[in-house]
């Protein structure tokens, strides 16, 4: 499919060029297509016929369409929509904490670019994508659609999304878990600056509901490194009480707390089979997307949060 981009703000042609070969595939589909893989657990999955594909050794025998064989004396397998078509729900945290930027690009801006790129990737593989922008509550939502035009709508939503104080990640996750009827991809892009237990409860709710959950946690480089020196007054973006202190004295405890937080999230996501990717806002989008896709394909592989 050739890249024909409408005029959008958050789709970078260079990035899209680099991720042109990537496909966001449901893990269950991936598992089913693997040669010699584990028994598929497609039971209960929708089986609407989509199209035929020439038989390849290793394809399940029961998937062979014998009628086509009778007519053509060649083997073709049936592909069902349920195996290839999924809904992707991209959730963007637009709370104030996402507005932090040490450079030109805030976490929210980065998340927008990331969301747009994921949306494009999903649409390109003719799947449906929807977008929900939330903070303490859902501010804007677009149900999944598969038309390429939906990218314009997504872009519009991203453009008007402004950070607002307070966030309620866990509540949004629970709500979405309640809303979704069919198994979907849920991509959460958030800094996850909330209670870990609450966040994991929400994510687990989605996971246990059978959805594929991907968590991308963009953090600013300063949040990851804490390079401050001297006396600083830190003013919370979500209404926290400011703190004036000497940065050198804060650094060690801050980094310890942050790493512990990140490690906990990573560990619990792994335990819940949730793909988790930590990135900083300086990292190229294509590299992040590749990491996300790679984790989809190698769930037992690298899962260490990327900390620069």
């Amino acid at each position: 499919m050739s890249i024909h981009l409408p005029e959008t703000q958050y789709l970078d042609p260079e990035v899209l060029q680099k991720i042109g070969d990537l496909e966001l595939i449901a893990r269950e589909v991936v598992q089913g297509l693997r040669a010699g893989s584990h028994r598929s657990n497609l039971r209960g999955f929708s089986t609407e016929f989509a199209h035929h594909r020439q038989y390849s050794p290793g394809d399940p025998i029961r998937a062979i369409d014998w009628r086509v064989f009778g007519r053509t004396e060649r083997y073709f397998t049936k592909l069902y929509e349920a195996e290839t078509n999924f809904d992707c729900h991209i959730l963007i945290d637009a709370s104030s904490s996402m507005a932090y930027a040490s450079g030109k690009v805030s976490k929210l801006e980065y998340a927008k670019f990331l969301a747009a790129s994921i949306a494009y990737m999903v649409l390109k593989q003719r799947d449906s994508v929807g977008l929900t922008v939330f903070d303490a509550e859902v501010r804007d939502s677009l149900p999944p659609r598969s038309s390429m035009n939906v990218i314009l709508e997504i872009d519009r939503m991203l453009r008007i999304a402004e950070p607002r104080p307070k966030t309620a990640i866990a509540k949004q996750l629970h709500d979405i878990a309640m809303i979704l009827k069919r198994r979907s991809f849920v991509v959460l892009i958030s800094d996850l600056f909330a209670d870990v237990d609450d966040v994991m409860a929400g994510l687990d709710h989605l996971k246990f509901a059978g959805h594929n959950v991907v968590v991308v946690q963009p953090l600013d480089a300063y949040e990851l490194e804490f390079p401050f020196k001297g006396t600083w007054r830190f003013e919370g973006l979500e209404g926290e009480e400011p703190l004036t202190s000497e940065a050198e004295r804060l650094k060690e405890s801050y980094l310890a707390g942050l790493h512990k937080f990140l490690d906990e999230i990573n560990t619990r996501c792994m335990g819940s089979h949730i793909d988790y990717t930590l990135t900083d806002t300086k990292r190229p989008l294509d590299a992040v997307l590749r990491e996300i896709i790679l984790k989809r394909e190698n769930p037992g592989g690298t899962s260490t949060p990327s900390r620069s």
Partner: protein
Amino acid sequence: MSFLNPWFLLAGLGIALPILAHLLNRFQVQRTDWAAMRFLDRAVRVRSRQLKLRDILLLILRCLALLLLVFALARPAWKGDAASWIPGEKRAGVVIALDASFSMEEGEAGQKRFDRALKQAAVISGKIQPGDPVTLLLLGGKERLVSHNMAFDQGRWDALMQEVKATPATLEWDGVPKRLAELAEEMDASAKEIYIVTDTQQRDWKNLSPEFHAALKGVQSQARVFLVPVPGTAANLAVTNLELVSGTLRKGGVARYQATVRNCGTESVSNVDVRCRVEGTQIDSKKIPLIAAGASETVSLFVPFHNAGATRITAEISADTLEADNIRRTVAVVRDRVSVLCVDGSGGDAGRLITAALMARGDAAAMEESTVRSIPWLAFPAEDLSKSDVIVLADVPEVTEEQIAQLARFVREGNGLIWFAGDDVKAASWNKHATAGDNALLPGALGSVVSTSDAIGAGKPLDPAMPDHTVCQPLQSLAEDLLSETRFLKCLELKPASSSFTVLRLAGGDTPVLLEKSLGRGQVFQFSTTAQATWNNMALTPVFPMLMQQMVTYLAGREFERPQTVGDTLTLSFVEQPDASDAVFDSPSGETLTVPVREYRDQFVALMENADEAGFYLARVSVQSAAMPVAVNVDTRESDVACLSKEELTERFKGSDVIIAEDEVALAAAIDTTRTGRTSWRFFLLAALAFLLIECLLADRLMRRKGADAADPTMPAGDLGKQNA
């Protein structure tokens, strides 16, 4: 408190820098929005008040360190007990005035006053800190600054003290306090001390002038004054005079010299041997049976002259505890003969009488020793004056201007002129040519002839009170009745010039009979009476021959024969410019000094200033020419070596702040007690460094203090988010 480098205090303005930095830093708390507040440990929050207190503390430390450093560089100093709690070093600038006059040489070998003075100086120097300024002034004659504001160094000081010696000069104290005040003023020190090390001679210290006391008080406003007496015994004999009394300085002749010995001590001395040496050879000795305390006795020494030329004569006594004044020196220029030319304007009478007076001995030896020729005054123009040593003008009516010039030149060359009045003398002519101006030939202007007879027609006698003049000495030995036999009926009024000196006068008034003046290297005598017996009966009495012979002997002498005193300027003079441009003086110790010959008042002179050794100097116009000895003696005023007692000294300075230290122990104690001036720059420097170190350590600690010290060690770091929410 004072500062030795007060300009450094300006650097204290630099204290504005840390204050400025503090003020600027107050507004430099940076701010930022922050999303990850949950991970910041609020326990390490620094409140603004903490920041203020921290900054103020560091500011105070920095300012203190800077101020202390500025103080240290400005070198603060204290006097007295002020701020005694601040540690410091006792330092002072020291001026040592060491009496080096020849009285300090009194004493046994190794225990002379000067030796003890050097020991006291060693005590003083032992208390001086390295680097402190020290000045050493040697008093006596021309003062010598051995060291001037020298930064004290023991080795260098010891080397200087090795060269310090007493001089044969005297010491006048009046100007000393003022000089000490000047030296103290020049000294850059917070505390100053002046040490006067002297033998406190009675002649100087018993009756100090009010000016001295006032000046000393002025010195005390600048410095602590220490008087360090090094007294000695009062016993001392000194040869105070040696002079030609009578006789002739002619080869083959004998001259009578008189030596005077004074007993400066407090007890009589008996059997004092006085020895006379000529060119080092003893030719006579006399014994003085007894010299009472404080009294002087004279002895006559007869000196035969076997050779012509300059002859060195000394009179010595046995060595006592002060040797410098045990010898007296003089020089006699012995001639083969003395030629006297008498220019007679009286028709022959004057010439006969003068010849007879000069040839009074009447023997063949006397004929050989001198020649006296008498010529009429009209024959004077044709006379070669270079053949004569003394010219006598007796009743010469007048001479031409050229003849006056000729006579003046004659005298300037070192010869003598004797002028007699007379009936034929034309006063106006003489006044016109010979009495006008400072370089006039005659000592006095001529007036009119006046009678000096009394009512009964007897003339006036000579005034028995005579000056201490070589010419008068024989007359002083005459009995008064013999002296009074000489009567003067008439005299020519003479108005002495300012440069003249009245040698003889008539009794009962100021009428001069004999005037003298120096002209160049010679002298001129001028009588207000005649040589012949028309105005007086002098020729008929012993006075005339004694006077004439003494005058001729005196006039025939040279300047070299007149002894000089230590400190005097030795002079060589020439009528015409000598061949050499420099004169050479050899000192008694063998040192050769070259001085240039300069023109001065129609003469050419070479001056050697400040003859600082006692002995015979040799003076010559060039290295090749024959040397003339010049006798230099000590000034025997210094021979009175009696010193003030301890009680007298204390009484003299009662009520003043002068500290009197009698011995080495007392001196050391006095220095320790009174030296309270301290400098504390090291203390302030160390304090500044300490404060700087504290400031650095404190700043570092405040900056780098770990949050874990302030946080609860039992709470996991992840719960910080909950804690801080």
